[in-house]
């Protein structure tokens, strides 16, 4: 590295404009999603500020924005250029009377929680990791453990500023540019680049969750338990992905409610706990063979017994409840250099049992099941390319290899035949056929892309693969 060139590093009120024209031969870097598969070369650009982004993107084609890089597959890998939004991290306004927050797209969820939880505010919807950005949460219309009650993240977005492919920032809300707004929620960054957004936080009395763990000994019990949780604020189930036969679909169901301040004080807890510094990191080059059938079986058996022992409700801090995997940094390296895929499907409620049983059985027989199989109830259907629909969503991590891909192709067909679909934020390999079968609003989305002149301009590896 040019130590000397960088020795100049010091503060700047930068007077230099970004280059007006893209270089003829851009510097390419290999980039992938969180799963490490697939990996592709892309020019990497970093946004400086919202107002300089139009100049940065001018003349470029095949561009996609990338926030936290937590989409598992190729959704945040630009076909030619990937724009990092990390510097768009300013919060633009917060009204404690309403909980209304306006922030730039690169602000992370971790930052939002760290900043506003001590004042008694928490987002209405959070996904399974806090290292995502606001822009990413909107583009994927992420859901949490409360989709059955609150819908997706997009349902709580009131407005956003979208830089459309013509280089013009547009204000979008349910009143202004309503179609563009609706299609941008879950639109995978393909309608424009989100610059900022306004959304609501909910008041909470504490940073603790009262968690009640229940055992489900098979899939039928599991689905029934999730149905019973319709009135729960949060509900999620962990499934032992290696259990077969009569134990197929066994697991633990976690119901959660925000703990009142009185309860926490009575328990002698700090009302708003901070997460531990998170020093535990999986080192680069971790051997993938450590994640084998024996180790996963042992882990699952242990986990099941421990959970089963803890029957009574307990207080769990927000970070452990919502973001358990964030405690182990770079856990994606557990799968080694070849990476892994996360398969997340949703199947409509009626007839879900048979489809889920088939998926779980076939995955268990493959024998490479991950310790992470998560089942959730989803509520209302979103618009555009938004993933959730009334039904059940199952997420499984599997090593990226030929056997996995062959199995998943078959499972995808089963899912779409049942009226379900696959989550684009997780997808790395589905076919155009299953994609088109799963998203009925796709023609309208494509029309909008054409009207916006987004074809070819805004393109990720995912959009190219799926013919978006």
């Amino acid at each position, binding site marked *: 590295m040019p130590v000397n060139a960088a020795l100049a*590093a010091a503060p700047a*009120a*930068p007077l230099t404009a970004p280059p007006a024209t893209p270089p003829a031969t851009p510097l390419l870097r290999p980039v992938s999603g969180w799963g490490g598969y697939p990996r592709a070369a892309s020019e990497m650009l970093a946004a400086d500020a919202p107002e300089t982004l139009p100049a940065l993107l001018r003349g470029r084609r095949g561009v996609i924005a990338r926030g936290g890089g937590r989409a598992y597959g190729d959704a945040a890998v630009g076909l030619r250029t990937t724009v990092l939004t990390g510097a768009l991290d300013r919060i633009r306004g917060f009204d404690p009377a309403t909980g209304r927050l306006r922030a730039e797209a690169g602000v992370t969820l971790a930052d939002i929680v760290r900043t506003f939880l001590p004042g008694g505010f928490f987002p209405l919807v959070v996904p399974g990791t806090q290292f995502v950005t606001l822009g990413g949460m909107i583009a994927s219309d992420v859901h949490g453990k409360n989709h059955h009650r609150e819908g997706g993240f997009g349902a709580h977005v009131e407005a956003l500023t979208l830089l459309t492919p013509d280089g013009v920032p547009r204000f979008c809300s349910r009143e202004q540019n309503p179609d563009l707004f609706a299609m941008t929620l879950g639109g995978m960054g393909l309608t424009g680049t989100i610059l900022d957004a306004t959304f609501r936080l909910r008041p909470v009395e504490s940073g603790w969750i009262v968690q009640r763990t229940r055992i489900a000994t098979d899939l039928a019990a599991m689905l029934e338990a999730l149905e019973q949780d319709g009135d729960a604020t949060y509900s999620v189930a962990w499934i032992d992905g290696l259990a077969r036969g009569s134990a197929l679909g066994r697991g633990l169901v976690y119901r959660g409610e925000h703990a009142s301040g009185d309860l926490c004080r009575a328990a002698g807890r700090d009302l708003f706990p901070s997460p531990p510094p998170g020093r535990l990191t999986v080192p680069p080059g971790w051997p993938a063979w450590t994640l084998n059938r024996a180790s996963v079986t042992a882990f699952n058996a242990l986990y099941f017994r421990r959970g089963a022992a803890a029957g009574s409700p307990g207080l769990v801090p927000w970070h452990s409840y919502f973001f358990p995997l964030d405690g182990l940094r770079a856990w994606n390296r557990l799968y080694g250099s070849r990476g892994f895929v996360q398969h997340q499907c949703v199947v409509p409620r009626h007839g879900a049992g048979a489809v889920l049983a088939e998926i779980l059985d076939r995955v268990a027989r493959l024998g490479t099941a991950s310790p992470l199989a998560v089942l959730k109830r989803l509520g209302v259907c979103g618009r555009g390319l938004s993933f959730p629909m009334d039904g059940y969503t199952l997420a499984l991590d599997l090593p990226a290899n030929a056997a996995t891909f062959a199995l998943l192709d078959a499972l995808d067909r089963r899912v779409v035949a049942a009226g379900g679909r696959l989550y684009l934020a997780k997808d790395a390999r589905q076919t155009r056929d299953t994609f088109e079968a799963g998203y009925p609003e796709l023609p309208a989305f494509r029309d909008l892309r054409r009207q916006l002149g987004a074809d070819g301009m805004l393109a990720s590896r995912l959009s190219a693969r799926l013919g978006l």
Partner: protein
Amino acid sequence: MAGTLLLVGATSDIGHAVAARYAEAGWRILLAARDPERAQRNADDLAARYRAEVALLRLDILATGDFARWLDGLPALPDTVVCAVGELGDQARAEGDLAHAEGVMRTNFLGPSLLLGLVAERFAARGSGAIVGISSVAGDRGRGSNYVYGAGKAGFTAFLSGLRNRLAKSGVRVVTVKPGFVRTRMTRGLRLPPLLTAEPSEVGRAVYAAAEGRGGDVVYVRKVWRLVMAVIGAIPEPVFKRLSL
């Protein structure tokens, strides 16, 4: 004790991190920028995160003739002034383009020095205040790859040193900060060695600790930089001049 901070160079990433640290501690913040519209997002951020009282002011660091009137027009004389103005410029261009070279020198040396010198007069008259100049390790020894910028920073460092010496007994504190590599807009795209590279927030904390805490005259944000620059400074000139730096 929370007071009023005047931050000059309010669109800079380091400047914003410094202001954030002061806002967190409950200070009132005056942000000065040549282009206040571009600093608006930083002002909003401080107000939203810390409920800080923030005001935006227009100041062109090259308009030295306006400084006295501008300072007199402030709502109140601040307790601490931090200058985070800087321009890396383009060394190759500066070698042939005198106007560019002059701009880099004026922006890094002349403007900041004259402004802080004037602030120092007012602080000395009052008998209190802290002055922080964000300089650079690039000013410690001129190198072929960036000596126009480095010379500007060297001048600024020398000016701050003299000011500190002169005001040592006056109750006015003068701090020189040399951040080393910092992950900012200015260094984006460069591959920086992680151990030598600070986050802007580290600079913010270091500035606050030096100016408002137990003090520090010349601050290298990452301590290892003191060693690195000692080594670079110790290389004999006959050797140094032949190095590709």
